[in-house]
């Protein structure tokens, strides 16, 4: 794209831009969360919103995730378009009742009379903060009928997926990642939307398909560089949406490469990869498949222990080589 057509922003600025555009266009969009007002968000991803849109629409909440999510769900059901910021994904668990038992079921249980278009934005991932501040549990939410789950891996998608999430008619869980905030990237200068339910090929390759999402997409791209030096070309598919899942894009790639590696930062058991591997195998029966994820242990704040558990580029590259040799 020409320099006039794009703008380069930090990951946090991409989120702020999506919020600002949505809040300017629609008075029903509001923001609730801890430290989202004058503080501008834990990652500065909401800077300027309170000054521009006022204290009624941008509200700091106490530490009360069940109420925070419930308020957002109830306000959505009553006609607003709230974004609820849950700083750490680990604490989303406290708000699962209103999200799963009400928001995800509202349209169905009321026979279509009530919908709850709420965006729950939360930050996942391991970055030195310990066992209760490091989890990536998006796989837990993928199987909830009525709930959509998205996970950007670039500033452009952080912007585009938030724009799309704020146009949905039901609840959306938007999962970003601690290690993505240092990133900067190009966005279209004009308004743009990234469709929910659509994966994207980040790097073309003919020997293996790596299906991944969020920060692990960056890790996969690093692994692809390592592999390319030895003549192995990896195709990296960034899922972007976990529910609905774009299996077609992954399957089309896997049908061509003949080998599929799924990569996630969360647990392998009942993980994102387990679902993808099975669904792709249904479409591409003679396929070599392997999964990479965190080891089955809590993620310590200790850097040595964290690094031992969470996948890195070397582990991914080794897994690819092992898969291709089999």
């Amino acid at each position, binding site marked *: 794209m020409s320099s006039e057509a794009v703008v380069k922003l930090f990951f946090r600025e991409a989120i702020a831009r999506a919020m600002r555009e949505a809040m300017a266009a629609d008075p029903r969009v509001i923001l609730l969360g801890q430290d989202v007002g004058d503080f501008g968000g834990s990652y500065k991803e909401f800077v300027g919103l309170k000054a521009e849109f006022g204290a009624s629409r941008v509200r700091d909440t106490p530490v009360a995730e069940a109420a925070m999510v419930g308020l957002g769900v109830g306000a959505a059901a009553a*006609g607003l378009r709230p974004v609820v910021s849950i700083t750490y994904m680990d604490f989303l668990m406290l708000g699962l009742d209103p999200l799963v*038992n009400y928001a995800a079921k509202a349209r169905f249980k009321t026979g279509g009379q009530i919908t709850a278009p709420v965006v729950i934005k939360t930050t996942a991932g391991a970055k030195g903060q310990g066992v209760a501040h490091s989890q990536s549990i998006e796989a837990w939410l993928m199987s909830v009928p009525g709930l959509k789950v998205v996970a950007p891996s670039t500033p452009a998608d952080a912007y585009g997926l938030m724009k799309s999430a704020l146009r949905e008619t039901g609840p959306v869980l938007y999962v970003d990642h601690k290690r993505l905030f240092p990133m900067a990237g190009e966005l279209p200068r004009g308004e743009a939307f990234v469709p929910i339910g659509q994966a994207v090929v980040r790097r073309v390759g003919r020997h293996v398909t790596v299906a991944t999402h969020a920060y692990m997409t960056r890790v996969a791209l690093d692994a692809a560089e390592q592999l390319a030096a030895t003549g192995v070309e990896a195709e990296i598919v960034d899922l972007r949406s976990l529910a609905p899942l774009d299996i077609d894009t992954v399957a089309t790639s896997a049908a061509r490469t003949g080998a599929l590696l799924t990569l996630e930062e969360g647990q392998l058991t009942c993980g994102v990869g387990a679902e993808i591997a099975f669904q792709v195998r249904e479409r591409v029966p003679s396929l070599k498949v392997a999964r990479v994820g965190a080891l089955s242990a809590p993620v310590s704040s200790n850097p040595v222990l964290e690094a031992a558990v969470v996948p890195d580029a070397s582990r991914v590259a080794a897994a690819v080589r092992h898969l291709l040799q089999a």
Partner: protein
Amino acid sequence: MMQIRAFEGALSARPDHGFQLYSSGEEAVAVGLCAALSADDQLFSSGRSIGPALARGLEPGAVMAELLGKVAGPNRGKGGRGHLAKPAAGFFGAHAVVGGNLTIAAGAALAAQVEGRLGVVACLFGDGACGSGALHETLNIATLWRLPLLLVCSNNQMSVSTPVAQALAPQRLSDLAAPFGAPGVTVDGMDVLAVRRAASELVRRARAGEGPAFLECVSERFSSHSSSTRETRSAEAMAAIRARCPIDRLAGALAAHGWPGRAELQAEVDAEIRAAVAFADASPYPDPAEALVDVV
């Protein structure tokens, strides 16, 4: 109140009544509360929804249809008693999770506040929900933000098999609002006029932007917790409880002023319920394909 009593009587007599929680004994709470609400307001309830739904003005035939899983119910038979709802009629709905509607109701009140609407949100729940963290989180934020929210606890003094004194430390449940600085009022939940009086003042206050309140209505549950839960209270206790009928109480108060009594109204009520049953029986079940409709 007679309508609720007769409705539940007709429903419970059917072999296909399904899993029900009855409001018998607590009619005055729902009816008194709804008499204080206007068309701009919304009512949320717990899974004990029959009384609240009928008190709010939903058609008995439609309610019966929903409880029996028929398409003519407001939820097309898909929610049942636990999720009965008709927001267009001011009944935002029941939610079957104990205490699960509290933060949702606060959110609906937040929406009214942000949009500058006059509507008040009332949320009806039982003593069983008062141990829930959600109640305290809701009282805190609603008071802080002065949300137009009225929390109404029908304290029927039992949570399934657990008497209230064994589940909750406070003697007066309305004292639960005190730490947050919101008004807490306790009234006799068997006196429909007392409920209406207290609710009206608290609704006025909320509508004027003065914030939430906690209204405790001490009531009695005339049946066991549910249609499939055995009664744990003694026969003597039940006899005394059923003698405190809120309908008889109102009828007695009105008789002093020459108003008609239960006997005069019973025929009309029974006919209405017969028509409701016929309406529900005439409605079909949803097509199995509806299991996948309105999911996302």
